[in-house]
Protein backbone atom coordinates (compact mmCIF):
# COMPACT_ATOMS: atom_id res chain seq x y z
CA UNK A 1 0.00 0.00 0.00
CA UNK A 2 1.37 3.43 -0.97
CA UNK A 3 1.14 5.87 1.92
CA UNK A 4 1.57 9.57 2.59
CA UNK A 5 2.77 10.58 6.04
CA UNK A 6 1.48 13.76 7.69
CA UNK A 7 4.86 15.11 8.62
CA UNK A 8 5.69 17.92 11.02
CA UNK A 9 9.35 17.02 11.48
CA UNK A 10 8.74 16.29 15.15
CA UNK A 11 9.37 13.01 16.95
CA UNK A 12 5.88 11.51 16.62
CA UNK A 13 5.40 11.95 12.89
CA UNK A 14 8.98 10.78 12.24
CA UNK A 15 8.50 7.66 14.37
CA UNK A 16 5.13 6.99 12.70
CA UNK A 17 6.90 7.28 9.33
CA UNK A 18 9.47 4.73 10.51
CA UNK A 19 6.76 2.24 11.55
CA UNK A 20 4.84 2.78 8.31
CA UNK A 21 7.98 2.21 6.23
CA UNK A 22 8.54 -1.12 8.02
CA UNK A 23 5.14 -2.42 6.86
CA UNK A 24 4.18 -0.58 3.67
CA UNK A 25 5.58 1.85 1.04
CA UNK A 26 5.90 5.49 2.05
CA UNK A 27 5.42 7.46 -1.17
CA UNK A 28 5.57 11.03 0.14
CA UNK A 29 5.46 13.35 3.11
CA UNK A 30 2.68 15.90 3.59
CA UNK A 31 3.43 19.04 5.59
CA UNK A 32 1.01 21.77 6.54
CA UNK A 33 2.66 25.02 7.55
CA UNK A 34 0.28 26.88 9.85
CA UNK A 35 0.69 30.60 10.41
CA UNK A 36 -1.32 30.17 13.61
CA UNK A 37 1.09 29.35 16.45
CA UNK A 38 -1.88 28.17 18.55
CA UNK A 39 -3.02 25.60 15.96
CA UNK A 40 -4.60 22.50 17.54
CA UNK A 41 -3.87 20.48 14.43
CA UNK A 42 -0.37 21.31 13.31
CA UNK A 43 3.01 21.42 15.03
CA UNK A 44 4.59 24.81 14.34
CA UNK A 45 8.19 25.34 15.60
CA UNK A 46 10.74 24.81 12.85
CA UNK A 47 8.23 23.42 10.40
CA UNK A 48 10.42 24.91 7.66
CA UNK A 49 13.08 22.31 8.49
CA UNK A 50 10.73 19.70 6.98
CA UNK A 51 12.23 20.41 3.53
CA UNK A 52 15.67 19.37 4.75
CA UNK A 53 14.21 16.37 6.57
CA UNK A 54 12.42 15.23 3.38
CA UNK A 55 15.70 15.55 1.50
CA UNK A 56 17.49 13.56 4.22
CA UNK A 57 14.81 10.87 3.89
CA UNK A 58 14.90 10.92 0.08
CA UNK A 59 11.12 11.43 -0.03
CA UNK A 60 9.05 13.98 -1.97
CA UNK A 61 7.27 16.59 0.13
CA UNK A 62 3.80 18.01 -0.48
CA UNK A 63 3.83 21.31 1.40
CA UNK A 64 0.90 23.66 1.85
CA UNK A 65 0.51 26.83 3.88
CA UNK A 66 -2.55 27.68 5.93
CA UNK A 67 -3.66 30.72 7.84
CA UNK A 68 -4.46 28.26 10.61
CA UNK A 69 -8.05 29.22 11.30
CA UNK A 70 -9.79 26.32 13.00
CA UNK A 71 -11.84 24.71 10.24
CA UNK A 72 -10.14 26.39 7.25
CA UNK A 73 -6.86 24.68 8.12
CA UNK A 74 -8.68 21.37 7.73
CA UNK A 75 -9.77 22.39 4.22
CA UNK A 76 -6.13 23.22 3.46
CA UNK A 77 -5.07 19.83 4.84
CA UNK A 78 -7.65 18.13 2.63
CA UNK A 79 -6.22 19.92 -0.43
CA UNK A 80 -2.72 18.75 0.51
CA UNK A 81 -3.83 15.13 0.95
CA UNK A 82 -5.79 15.26 -2.32
CA UNK A 83 -2.66 16.58 -4.06
CA UNK A 84 -0.60 13.73 -2.56
CA UNK A 85 -3.18 11.25 -3.83
CA UNK A 86 -3.15 12.61 -7.38
CA UNK A 87 0.63 13.19 -7.62
CA UNK A 88 1.94 10.15 -5.78
CA UNK A 89 -0.93 7.67 -5.95
CA UNK A 90 -1.22 7.26 -2.19
CA UNK A 91 -3.87 4.86 -0.92
CA UNK A 92 -3.64 5.87 2.71
CA UNK A 93 -2.44 8.49 5.18
CA UNK A 94 -0.35 8.00 8.32
CA UNK A 95 -0.36 10.35 11.31
CA UNK A 96 1.70 10.53 14.47
CA UNK A 97 -1.39 10.88 16.68
CA UNK A 98 -0.89 9.27 20.10
CA UNK A 99 -3.83 10.38 22.22
CA UNK A 100 -5.56 13.18 20.35
CA UNK A 101 -9.00 12.08 19.25
CA UNK A 102 -9.41 15.67 18.00
CA UNK A 103 -6.59 15.28 15.46
CA UNK A 104 -7.15 11.63 14.57
CA UNK A 105 -10.88 11.94 13.92
CA UNK A 106 -10.49 15.03 11.75
CA UNK A 107 -7.83 13.40 9.58
CA UNK A 108 -9.96 10.24 9.45
CA UNK A 109 -12.96 12.17 8.10
CA UNK A 110 -10.82 13.80 5.41
CA UNK A 111 -9.38 10.42 4.39
CA UNK A 112 -12.85 9.00 4.26
CA UNK A 113 -14.02 11.73 1.89
CA UNK A 114 -10.98 11.07 -0.31
CA UNK A 115 -11.48 7.27 -0.15
CA UNK A 116 -8.15 6.71 1.61
CA UNK A 117 -7.06 4.41 4.41
CA UNK A 118 -5.89 6.09 7.59
CA UNK A 119 -3.39 4.80 10.16
CA UNK A 120 -2.18 6.02 13.55
CA UNK A 121 0.62 3.56 14.38
CA UNK A 122 1.53 5.30 17.66
CA UNK A 123 -2.07 5.33 18.92
CA UNK A 124 -2.25 4.95 22.73
CA UNK A 125 1.49 4.25 22.98
CA UNK A 126 2.85 4.69 26.49
CA UNK A 127 4.54 8.10 26.48
CA UNK A 128 7.67 7.14 28.41
CA UNK A 129 8.08 4.05 26.21
CA UNK A 130 7.74 6.23 23.13
CA UNK A 131 10.59 8.49 24.28
CA UNK A 132 12.72 5.49 25.20
CA UNK A 133 12.14 4.02 21.74
CA UNK A 134 13.55 7.18 20.19
CA UNK A 135 16.71 6.90 22.26
CA UNK A 136 17.03 3.15 21.61
CA UNK A 137 16.68 3.70 17.85
CA UNK A 138 19.31 6.48 18.01
CA UNK A 139 17.03 9.36 16.99
CA UNK A 140 18.54 12.79 17.52
CA UNK A 141 15.59 14.86 18.70
CA UNK A 142 15.75 18.33 20.22
CA UNK A 143 13.11 20.16 22.20
CA UNK A 144 12.11 23.06 19.96
CA UNK A 145 9.21 24.48 21.95
CA UNK A 146 8.03 24.52 25.58
CA UNK A 147 4.56 25.69 26.48
CA UNK A 148 3.86 24.75 30.10
CA UNK A 149 5.12 25.58 33.59
CA UNK A 150 7.66 24.65 34.98
CA UNK A 151 9.39 24.07 31.64
CA UNK A 152 11.65 27.06 30.99
CA UNK A 153 14.12 28.30 28.39
CA UNK A 154 16.81 25.91 29.66
CA UNK A 155 14.88 23.06 28.02
CA UNK A 156 15.02 24.61 24.57
CA UNK A 157 17.49 22.97 22.20
CA UNK A 158 18.07 20.07 24.60
CA UNK A 159 18.42 16.65 23.03
CA UNK A 160 16.05 13.93 24.27
CA UNK A 161 18.22 11.45 26.15
CA UNK A 162 17.73 9.21 29.23
CA UNK A 163 18.42 12.13 31.61
CA UNK A 164 15.82 14.37 29.90
CA UNK A 165 13.30 11.50 29.85
CA UNK A 166 13.78 10.88 33.59
CA UNK A 167 13.27 14.59 34.32
CA UNK A 168 10.12 14.77 32.15
CA UNK A 169 8.66 11.71 33.89
CA UNK A 170 9.41 13.35 37.25
CA UNK A 171 7.54 16.48 36.13
CA UNK A 172 4.63 14.29 35.04
CA UNK A 173 4.27 13.14 38.64
CA UNK A 174 4.53 16.66 40.10
CA UNK A 175 2.82 18.86 37.50
CA UNK A 176 0.78 16.42 35.36
CA UNK A 177 2.93 17.28 32.36
CA UNK A 178 2.71 14.78 29.55
CA UNK A 179 6.31 13.48 29.11
CA UNK A 180 5.97 13.23 25.35
CA UNK A 181 4.16 16.57 25.06
CA UNK A 182 0.78 15.10 24.14
CA UNK A 183 -0.95 18.03 25.81
CA UNK A 184 1.10 20.47 23.74
CA UNK A 185 3.60 21.04 26.59
CA UNK A 186 6.63 20.43 24.37
CA UNK A 187 7.33 20.34 20.67
CA UNK A 188 10.32 18.64 19.10
CA UNK A 189 12.42 18.67 15.95
CA UNK A 190 14.18 15.58 14.59
CA UNK A 191 17.75 16.18 13.40
CA UNK A 192 18.63 12.54 12.71
CA UNK A 193 16.73 9.26 12.51
CA UNK A 194 17.45 5.73 11.28
CA UNK A 195 15.82 6.42 7.89
CA UNK A 196 17.72 9.69 7.36
CA UNK A 197 20.46 9.24 4.75
CA UNK A 198 22.11 12.43 6.00
CA UNK A 199 21.64 14.26 9.27
CA UNK A 200 20.76 17.88 9.96
CA UNK A 201 23.33 20.21 11.45
CA UNK A 202 21.99 23.41 12.99
CA UNK A 203 24.37 26.24 12.12
CA UNK A 204 22.39 29.16 13.56
CA UNK A 205 19.59 29.14 16.13
CA UNK A 206 18.05 31.42 18.71
CA UNK A 207 15.85 31.06 21.75
CA UNK A 208 12.70 33.18 21.71
CA UNK A 209 11.00 33.41 25.10
CA UNK A 210 7.72 35.12 25.85
CA UNK A 211 5.86 34.93 29.15
CA UNK A 212 5.71 31.27 30.09
CA UNK A 213 6.56 29.69 26.75
CA UNK A 214 9.28 29.74 24.17
CA UNK A 215 10.68 28.25 21.01
CA UNK A 216 14.10 27.25 19.75
CA UNK A 217 14.15 28.76 16.28
CA UNK A 218 16.44 27.13 13.75
CA UNK A 219 17.57 29.99 11.52
CA UNK A 220 20.02 28.05 9.42
CA UNK A 221 20.67 24.36 9.03
CA UNK A 222 22.26 22.04 6.50
CA UNK A 223 22.56 18.37 5.70
CA UNK A 224 25.84 16.68 6.60
CA UNK A 225 27.03 13.09 6.18
CA UNK A 226 26.16 10.68 9.00
Amino acid at each position, binding site marked *: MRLGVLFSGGKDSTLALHLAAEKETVACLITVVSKNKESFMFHTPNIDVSGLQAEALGLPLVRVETEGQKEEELADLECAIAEAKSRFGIEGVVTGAVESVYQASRVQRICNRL*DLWQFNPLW*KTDQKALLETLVAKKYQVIISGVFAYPLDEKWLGKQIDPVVIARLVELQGKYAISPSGEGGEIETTVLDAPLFRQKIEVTDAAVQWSGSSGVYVIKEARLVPK
Partner: protein
Amino acid sequence: MTVLVVDMNWKKDSLAYTEFVSPIVAAVEPLVACAVRHYLELQPSEIDGYSHIILSGTPLKDFKFQKHLDRFQWIKTCTKPLLGICAGMQTITKVYSETLSACQQVGMTEITTTKENPLFSGAFQAYSLHSYSATPSPLFEVLAESKECIQAIKHRQKPLYGVLFHPEVRNPDILKRFVESGSGI
Protein backbone atom coordinates in the same frame (compact mmCIF):
# COMPACT_ATOMS: atom_id res chain seq x y z
CA MET B 1 -6.44 -17.82 32.84
CA THR B 2 -5.51 -16.24 29.51
CA VAL B 3 -7.43 -13.75 27.38
CA LEU B 4 -7.32 -14.26 23.63
CA VAL B 5 -7.34 -11.08 21.53
CA VAL B 6 -8.29 -11.86 17.94
CA ASP B 7 -6.60 -9.52 15.44
CA MET B 8 -9.36 -8.68 12.93
CA ASN B 9 -7.17 -6.57 10.61
CA TRP B 10 -6.91 -7.41 6.92
CA LYS B 11 -3.60 -9.21 7.34
CA LYS B 12 -1.36 -10.50 10.10
CA ASP B 13 1.22 -8.07 11.51
CA SER B 14 -0.37 -5.15 9.66
CA LEU B 15 0.30 -1.44 10.11
CA ALA B 16 -3.04 -1.28 11.97
CA TYR B 17 -1.94 -3.76 14.67
CA THR B 18 -0.56 -1.14 17.06
CA GLU B 19 -3.69 0.98 16.65
CA PHE B 20 -6.42 -1.65 17.03
CA VAL B 21 -4.84 -4.59 18.87
CA SER B 22 -2.04 -3.25 21.09
CA PRO B 23 -4.29 -0.85 23.09
CA ILE B 24 -6.59 -3.79 23.99
CA VAL B 25 -3.61 -5.84 25.13
CA ALA B 26 -2.29 -2.85 27.11
CA ALA B 27 -5.64 -2.51 28.90
CA VAL B 28 -6.05 -6.15 29.94
CA GLU B 29 -2.47 -7.38 30.35
CA PRO B 30 -1.95 -5.78 33.78
CA LEU B 31 -4.81 -8.02 35.00
CA VAL B 32 -4.36 -11.29 33.15
CA ALA B 33 -2.12 -13.01 30.62
CA CYS B 34 -2.98 -12.14 27.04
CA ALA B 35 -2.41 -13.92 23.73
CA VAL B 36 -3.01 -12.55 20.22
CA ARG B 37 -3.95 -14.58 17.15
CA HIS B 38 -4.88 -13.33 13.69
CA TYR B 39 -8.35 -14.50 12.66
CA LEU B 40 -7.07 -16.22 9.52
CA GLU B 41 -4.77 -18.40 11.63
CA LEU B 42 -7.10 -19.12 14.54
CA GLN B 43 -8.47 -22.66 14.69
CA PRO B 44 -11.78 -23.24 16.54
CA SER B 45 -10.11 -26.00 18.57
CA GLU B 46 -7.82 -23.36 20.15
CA ILE B 47 -10.70 -21.49 21.79
CA ASP B 48 -10.92 -23.98 24.65
CA GLY B 49 -7.46 -22.89 25.80
CA TYR B 50 -8.59 -19.38 26.70
CA SER B 51 -10.79 -17.95 29.45
CA HIS B 52 -12.10 -14.90 27.52
CA ILE B 53 -12.05 -13.80 23.88
CA ILE B 54 -11.94 -10.24 22.50
CA LEU B 55 -12.38 -9.52 18.78
CA SER B 56 -10.56 -6.29 17.82
CA GLY B 57 -11.71 -3.45 15.60
CA THR B 58 -10.20 -2.56 12.22
CA PRO B 59 -9.47 0.56 10.12
CA LEU B 60 -12.54 2.24 8.64
CA LYS B 61 -11.82 0.90 5.13
CA ASP B 62 -11.06 -2.65 6.21
CA PHE B 63 -13.97 -5.00 5.54
CA LYS B 64 -11.97 -8.10 4.65
CA PHE B 65 -13.19 -9.93 7.77
CA GLN B 66 -16.71 -9.88 6.32
CA LYS B 67 -15.51 -12.11 3.47
CA HIS B 68 -14.32 -14.72 5.96
CA LEU B 69 -17.37 -15.28 8.10
CA ASP B 70 -16.73 -19.03 7.80
CA ARG B 71 -13.72 -18.44 10.09
CA PHE B 72 -16.05 -17.24 12.87
CA GLN B 73 -18.75 -19.91 12.99
CA TRP B 74 -17.27 -21.11 16.31
CA ILE B 75 -18.87 -18.02 17.90
CA LYS B 76 -22.27 -19.72 17.75
CA THR B 77 -21.16 -22.59 19.99
CA CYS B 78 -18.78 -20.59 22.18
CA THR B 79 -19.90 -20.40 25.82
CA LYS B 80 -16.88 -18.43 27.11
CA PRO B 81 -17.11 -14.68 27.72
CA LEU B 82 -16.62 -13.04 24.32
CA LEU B 83 -16.53 -9.33 23.46
CA GLY B 84 -16.61 -8.09 19.87
CA ILE B 85 -15.40 -4.51 19.36
CA CYS B 86 -16.70 -2.63 16.29
CA ALA B 87 -15.71 -5.04 13.48
CA GLY B 88 -16.05 -7.71 16.17
CA MET B 89 -19.64 -6.72 16.93
CA GLN B 90 -20.40 -6.56 13.20
CA THR B 91 -18.97 -10.06 12.84
CA ILE B 92 -21.12 -11.43 15.69
CA THR B 93 -24.17 -9.87 14.04
CA LYS B 94 -23.36 -11.42 10.65
CA VAL B 95 -22.58 -14.83 12.17
CA TYR B 96 -26.11 -14.80 13.59
CA SER B 97 -27.38 -14.05 10.06
CA GLU B 98 -28.45 -10.47 10.66
CA THR B 99 -27.54 -7.52 8.49
CA LEU B 100 -25.54 -4.32 8.85
CA SER B 101 -26.79 -0.87 7.91
CA ALA B 102 -24.77 2.09 6.65
CA CYS B 103 -24.09 4.39 9.60
CA GLN B 104 -20.86 6.30 9.84
CA GLN B 105 -19.53 7.79 13.07
CA VAL B 106 -16.01 9.11 13.65
CA GLY B 107 -15.06 10.72 16.96
CA MET B 108 -16.39 10.98 20.49
CA THR B 109 -19.99 9.82 20.84
CA GLU B 110 -22.54 10.03 23.64
CA ILE B 111 -23.57 6.49 24.65
CA THR B 112 -26.63 5.79 26.80
CA THR B 113 -27.04 2.54 28.69
CA THR B 114 -30.48 1.05 28.10
CA LYS B 115 -30.13 -2.13 30.15
CA GLU B 116 -28.21 -2.80 33.33
CA ASN B 117 -25.12 -4.92 32.70
CA PRO B 118 -21.71 -5.73 34.27
CA LEU B 119 -19.61 -3.70 31.79
CA PHE B 120 -20.92 -0.10 31.94
CA SER B 121 -23.75 2.04 33.24
CA GLY B 122 -25.41 5.42 32.72
CA ALA B 123 -24.42 7.84 29.97
CA PHE B 124 -20.80 8.16 28.87
CA GLN B 125 -18.58 9.37 26.04
CA ALA B 126 -16.78 6.81 23.88
CA TYR B 127 -14.75 6.84 20.66
CA SER B 128 -16.57 5.70 17.53
CA LEU B 129 -14.99 4.66 14.23
CA HIS B 130 -17.42 2.73 12.10
CA SER B 131 -19.20 2.79 8.74
CA TYR B 132 -21.93 0.30 9.62
CA SER B 133 -24.24 -0.26 12.54
CA ALA B 134 -25.62 -3.66 13.47
CA THR B 135 -29.16 -4.76 14.23
CA PRO B 136 -28.89 -7.94 16.28
CA SER B 137 -30.99 -11.07 16.03
CA PRO B 138 -33.80 -11.59 18.60
CA LEU B 139 -31.37 -13.84 20.47
CA PHE B 140 -29.64 -10.64 21.64
CA GLU B 141 -30.71 -7.78 23.87
CA VAL B 142 -29.64 -4.15 23.40
CA LEU B 143 -27.47 -2.78 26.22
CA ALA B 144 -26.69 0.71 24.91
CA GLU B 145 -27.52 3.15 22.13
CA SER B 146 -26.32 6.45 20.70
CA LYS B 147 -28.52 8.94 18.88
CA GLU B 148 -27.60 7.24 15.60
CA CYS B 149 -27.60 3.51 16.32
CA ILE B 150 -27.37 0.51 18.65
CA GLN B 151 -24.00 0.65 20.44
CA ALA B 152 -23.89 -2.49 22.58
CA ILE B 153 -25.56 -5.90 22.60
CA LYS B 154 -25.51 -9.11 24.64
CA HIS B 155 -26.70 -12.61 23.85
CA ARG B 156 -29.69 -13.44 26.09
CA GLN B 157 -28.31 -16.84 27.13
CA LYS B 158 -24.52 -16.49 26.93
CA PRO B 159 -21.80 -13.98 27.98
CA LEU B 160 -21.44 -12.91 24.36
CA TYR B 161 -21.12 -9.11 24.06
CA GLY B 162 -20.71 -6.66 21.20
CA VAL B 163 -19.82 -2.96 21.39
CA LEU B 164 -19.72 -0.73 18.33
CA PHE B 165 -17.60 1.93 20.04
CA HIS B 166 -13.91 1.42 20.87
CA PRO B 167 -13.53 1.01 24.66
CA GLU B 168 -9.74 0.71 24.34
CA VAL B 169 -9.50 4.41 23.42
CA ARG B 170 -11.25 6.24 26.27
CA ASN B 171 -13.02 3.50 28.31
CA PRO B 172 -10.42 0.82 29.16
CA ASP B 173 -12.33 0.06 32.39
CA ILE B 174 -14.97 -1.65 30.26
CA LEU B 175 -12.32 -4.09 29.05
CA LYS B 176 -11.12 -4.62 32.62
CA ARG B 177 -14.65 -5.35 33.79
CA PHE B 178 -15.10 -7.75 30.89
CA VAL B 179 -12.02 -9.82 31.78
CA GLU B 180 -12.99 -9.72 35.44
CA SER B 181 -16.47 -11.00 34.59
CA GLY B 182 -16.93 -14.71 35.20
CA SER B 183 -13.29 -15.07 36.21
CA GLY B 184 -13.30 -14.74 39.96
CA ILE B 185 -10.62 -11.96 39.83
